[in-house]
């Protein structure tokens, strides 16, 4: 039996390499987020944002851009028979869940590396809150990656593939978005970041990550049976 760590590394490397070579998801996600910022600029008719409005625009954009990547997360597995290969391989199936969560985390981090600086450039007058924002992004990405991987793996085997991910994922991440925007809002207020209830919201994010990480890990086995 191949060790889980080797399998994890192999799947993750495979995913990242194929993304690097085909560039199927990432450029689309980044482009989508920039265009969405432009739409918000005119939709809200604001040239600068702060506080709750800034947090809302940032998270709505990141979430919808993430949905693009989540939609495509398992497409290669399905079309090229990767699911069968994983079923045949003598490895623990939860490894696929872990590796896919890790791959999605890398995608989300890459997306944010592009989208957040552009957001700051477009809208923020005082980028002082961006430092602590990294912590919020990291914790929210973890939860988004766990739920996204779970939903994506189910949606890809259904008839209404691209429809199911936004349909099921959006209500599922509402608590995550409440906590993420709650933590982001005081960071982006005019006149420098404040830390009103910052720790509490980080704890909610951590709890969400923990619960859905465990749920995903526990049920993923059943999604691969055939």
């Amino acid at each position, binding site marked *: 039996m191949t060790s889980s760590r080797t399998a994890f590394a192999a799947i993750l490397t495979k995913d990242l390499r194929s993304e690097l070579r085909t560039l199927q998801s990432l450029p689309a996600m980044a482009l989508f987020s920039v265009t969405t910022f432009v739409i918000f600029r005119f939709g809200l008719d604001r040239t600068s944002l702060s506080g709750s409005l800034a947090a809302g625009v940032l998270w709505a954009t990141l979430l919808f851009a993430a949905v693009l990547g989540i939609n495509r997360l398992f497409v290669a597995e399905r079309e090229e028979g990767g699911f069968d290969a994983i079923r045949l391989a003598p490895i623990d199936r939860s490894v696929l869940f872990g590796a896919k969560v890790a791959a999605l985390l890398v995608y989300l981090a890459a997306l944010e590396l592009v989208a957040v600086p552009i957001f700051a450039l477009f809208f923020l007058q005082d980028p002082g809150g961006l430092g602590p924002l990294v912590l919020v992004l990291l914790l929210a990405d973890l939860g988004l990656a766990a739920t996204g991987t779970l939903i994506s793996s189910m949606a890809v085997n259904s008839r209404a593939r691209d429809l199911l991910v936004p349909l099921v994922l959006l209500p599922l991440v*509402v*608590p995550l978005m409440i906590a993420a925007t709650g933590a982001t809002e005081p960071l982006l207020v005019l006149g420098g970041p404040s830390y009103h209830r910052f720790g509490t919201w980080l704890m909610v994010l951590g709890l969400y990550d923990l*619960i*859905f990480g465990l749920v995903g890990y526990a049920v993923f086995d*059943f999604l691969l049976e055939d």
Partner: protein
Amino acid sequence: MYGKGLKPLSIATVAMLAVSLSLVFFYAPLDGDQGFIQKIFYLHVPLAMTALVGFIVGGVFAIAHLRTDDRKWDAYSYVSIHISVIFGVAVLITGAIWAKASWGHWWVWNEPTLVSFLIVFLMYATYYPFRYAIEDRDRQARYASVFAITAGAFVPLNFMAVRMAQSLVHPRVFATSNGGLPGEMLVVFLCCLVAMALLWVTLVKFELTAKSASGQVKRLRRALDAPAGGGSSRIAPEVS
């Protein structure tokens, strides 16, 4: 096989509902602050509690399905969620009526319980398109169970997050816990809760019975059709 005991259960439910409603209208004291409209509380809150518990129960049945691989539990889980969604519609409607009567608006974003319930309802409303987008029956049952478990874990987490988003800004308008209720109201409320729970159980049993009966009819019809060949729906082969 699901129909056993359905009749006494239905009678008990109707009796309990009748008793509870008469208690609500003839025994429970009028609320000093809100007057008559407060009586919708005896309908709204038990409905909401039953629906939420029903969602969780659906998740527990789903765990049983994944553990035993017995399709029976998937049917239980599906019907539990189905009836709870119907209860959820009733909760949202009675909640809106109550909100209009006591606050003057059909919808109030400041009431965390109302908002949490809407989010939970939206989550479970996606159960149907999700379930029926999967064609293979075994896979459908398995994925639906995974959905039910995930959504079951989501219910308490969501309530916590929504409550936290508002609790410091807006005080809780209602004490939904029984601590704030005077004795007579509490008795009536508990009666209503039992009645609603009974109604939920009866409806679940009813739906399961109907489902298993229509499944059996379908199977019998197929068995009858098979020897006759073709897709005709003759009950007996023709005698020449």
